[in-house]
């Protein structure tokens, strides 16, 4: 059963742009963290996906918004979020709000486990 990554990423991208247009950043984030494209081999698709999610993360202009939205995330979503944060930090358009995202996610996760999973999990990568 192979996943149709292009369809998933396309649908998710549309959902995210719709949510961002109505300034519903929380819904945009939830959509961005759903069904990460683990195992996708198409580099361009993965890059597009990261670009979209990075846009969502950078759309949070105020640190208070980040704090509000991070409380509603589950443990699995925190893991996926950390992977996307590192992927977004690697891009040239990295923003200082991403550094704040990293610090807040780390605090919410309660330790370095999510960071270690980003480094060590070679099967489930978003990049």
């Amino acid at each position, binding site marked *: 059963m192979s996943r149709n990554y292009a369809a998933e990423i396309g649908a998710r991208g549309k959902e995210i742009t719709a949510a961002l247009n109505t300034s519903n950043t929380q819904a945009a984030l939830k959509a961005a963290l759903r069904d990460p494209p683990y195992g996708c081999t198409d580099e361009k698709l993965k890059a597009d996906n990261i670009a979209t999610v990075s846009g969502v993360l950078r759309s949070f202009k105020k640190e208070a918004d980040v704090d509000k939205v991070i409380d509603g995330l589950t443990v699995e979503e925190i893991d996926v979020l950390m992977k996307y944060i590192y992927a977004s*930090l*690697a891009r040239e358009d990295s923003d200082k709000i991403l*550094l704040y995202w*990293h*610090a807040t996610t780390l605090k919410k996760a309660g330790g370095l486990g999510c*960071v*270690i999973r*980003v480094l060590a999990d070679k099967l489930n990568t978003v990049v």
Partner: protein
Amino acid sequence: GINAEYGTITCFTLARLSEEKQHFTYTLTPTHSEALLMAAAKPGNEKKPYLDVIRSTLEAAMCLQNFASQEVERHNKPEVEWQNHKELLLNPVTIVRNSGEKTLIEGSINSIRVSVCIKKADELDTILAKRFLRFLSQRAENFIVLRRKPVKGYDISFLVTNTHTETMYKHKLVDFIIQFMTDIDSEISDMKLAVSGRARTVVTTYLGAFK
């Protein structure tokens, strides 16, 4: 450099030794207190989030254990340098602060490589950074965890192996790298001021002869 026994850190500053016409000689003198004063005087808070991210990533990646080479018997190689076996390597992570500053952290089972790109505002900064960091890299034995050549695309690299984490405190090693990155900027800006100050003196004394 690092005092291996106690894992302490000493910082170096460049001090001008003598000035004769156009000849200038330099020496490195350890002035820990001076460096601390410099670091305290500068408003370093803008870099703090960037360095915090690097610190937590380093703490996570610096979990190293001894691992003998799988290819050559009785050999022990830092696997991050070898890059042959994918199962021994961690995902490399880049943390970009802006177009001029980024850090690449590549981990593996027995070693971790940290490469840093320093912010360079203008040409003089580029020259000073290159010279200063090359000066330090060539004395890599004294710094123990420094790499002799920076990774391609970066200004300076550190290589920490399991022997280093066994003989030195891991939190101190992380502190050293973070301290290095904090001090590098102030060192280079001080050098830039010194160069422009000296240039000004030279020019005024030279042109004073034509008054």
